[in-house]
């Protein structure tokens, strides 16, 4: 009997895993199940080029549509996996069908967080995760229309930049002091605030939405501090939560996502996880981390597939992502939640800098604005997790690649 490997989540991670199983020579059955009706696609353009109507959906596809049949990957798109039976080794899908597996990869990703705000379900209030979500927002975009963006994380920031580029008047409401505050902190967030203001976005910080109001559809947004903002439509970005219900009752540990080791294995034999949903042990940072970015989905799906085939190597990619806003290219590498010192090389006022998040003399992470080369050159420094001299980090004449051997 040939083995059957089932991948739940027809995403960048899941689609990449299915492709990798074939590339690595697996000759059993591969079944790829996805809740969305489209073949796997990349999400970064949804807040950027695709939202601005500058790129097509086809350009976002991970593989051409015929790739799956050509590689004998059985696909079930537009079908939700409901539960997993560990004892029988089955995945139950919409309509009650039971799909048997020998090994199972869960790459179900995340869903947008919904906060209990009155009027959130009104017509004209959107969030953004899927291409279907994006198409709804795109239909609202036209020069001179008024939008409110609630939440200035990465998705919110990119949406605002795209809407401004498309001529939409935007008012931002965010509960923090600056955009991207949670991840990047106040100093770097302040730089991005200036960028958005220079591009005509109005921004309200340290306030939250009280309600979305309107008769048939949203007409205004009210805030806790008593503001009233008229709008034609609104977008909310409160982050995502991992989609894990599938594994309820299976014995797989769920804690901020699906808990896996550095080989993408859960504690239950034959069940693996990858991508946004996977809270994975990371050997570099010596802790579990869950990463909601493109590169992690791109690399961890295939890593999980190799693990399923018994070719596992520890997954220890340094997390990295970019965020394009207007003509600014922001990149981040590493992983940090707190830091002792922010060491800046370059000039934040000129918006050309790299900032290192340093804790106990080690660089946990770095963020660069229009300074991609330095960010690239910092990655090994981050991976090494060795003490680094702050003065050298700051000095633009010191080659960041040389720093590692010098310390």
């Amino acid at each position, binding site marked *: 009997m040939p083995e059957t490997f089932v991948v739940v989540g027809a995403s960048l991670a899941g689609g990449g895993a299915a492709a990798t199983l074939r590339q690595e020579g697996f000759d059993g059955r591969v079944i790829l199940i996805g809740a969305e009706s489209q073949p796997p696609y990349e999400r970064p353009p949804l807040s950027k080029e695709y939202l601005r109507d500058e790129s097509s959906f086809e350009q976002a596809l991970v593989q051409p549509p015929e790739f799956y049949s050509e590689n004998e990957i059985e696909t079930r798109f537009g079908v939700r996996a409901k539960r997993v039976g560990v004892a029988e080794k089955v995945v139950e899908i919409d309509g009650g069908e039971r799909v048997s597996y020998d090994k199972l990869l869960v790459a179900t990703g995340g869903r947008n967080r919904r906060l209990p705000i009155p009027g959130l379900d009104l017509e004209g209030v959107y969030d953004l995760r899927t291409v279907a979500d994006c198409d709804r927002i795109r239909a609202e975009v036209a020069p001179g229309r008024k939008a409110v963006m609630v939440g200035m994380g990465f998705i919110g920031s990119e949406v605002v930049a795209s809407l401004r580029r498309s001529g939409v008047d935007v008012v931002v409401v965010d509960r923090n002091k600056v955009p991207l505050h949670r991840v990047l902190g106040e100093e770097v967030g302040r730089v991005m605030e200036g960028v958005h203001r220079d591009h005509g976005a109005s921004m309200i910080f340290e306030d939250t939405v009280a309600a979305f109001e309107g008769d048939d559809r949203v007409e205004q947004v009210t805030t806790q501090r008593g503001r009233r903002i008229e709008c034609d439509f609104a977008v909310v970005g409160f982050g995502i939560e991992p989609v894990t219900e599938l594994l309820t009752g299976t014995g797989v540990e769920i804690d901020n996502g699906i808990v896996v080791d550095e080989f993408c294995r859960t504690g239950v034999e034959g069940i693996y996880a990858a991508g946004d949903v996977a809270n994975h042990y990371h050997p570099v940072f010596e802790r579990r981390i869950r990463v909601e970015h493109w*590169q992690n989905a791109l690399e961890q799906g295939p890593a999980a597939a190799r693990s399923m085939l018994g070719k596992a190597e520890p997954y220890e990619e340094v997390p*990295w992502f970019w965020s394009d806003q207007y003509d600014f*290219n922001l*990149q981040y590498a590493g992983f940090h939640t707190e830091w002792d010192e922010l060491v800046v090389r370059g000039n934040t006022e000129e918006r050309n800098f790299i900032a290192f998040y340093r804790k106990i003399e080690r660089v946990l992470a770095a963020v660069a604005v229009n300074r*991609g*080369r330095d960010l*690239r*050159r910092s990655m090994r420094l981050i991976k090494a997790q060795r003490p680094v001299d702050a003065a050298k980090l700051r000095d633009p004449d010191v080659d960041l690649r040389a720093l590692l051997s010098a310390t």
Partner: protein
Amino acid sequence: MAEFEVVARADDLKEGDMRAFDVRGTKIAVAKVAGTFYAFGDTCTHRECSLAEGDLEETTVTCPCHGSEFDVVSGQVLRGPARVPVGSFEVRAEGGNLEVKD
């Protein structure tokens, strides 16, 4: 008709360096790796960043904006997000000049 055009002095480009030149309207990058010059399309096929502003490691150039990697010898994509190769061009050092054919 494509012809060799002088873009710089050959010794202007140091080992491990990259520079972009405008050759009759085409942005072409030249890299020097282990004494050999390689010429390739400077404009990343993903989002049009200048590859010469990126990083060069042996014969791999990494885009500064989104991390796509290209082989400077062939122009082939080694790693996404880019999917389309960049052009590959002839380059030579002639009489102390660096010359590129577009």
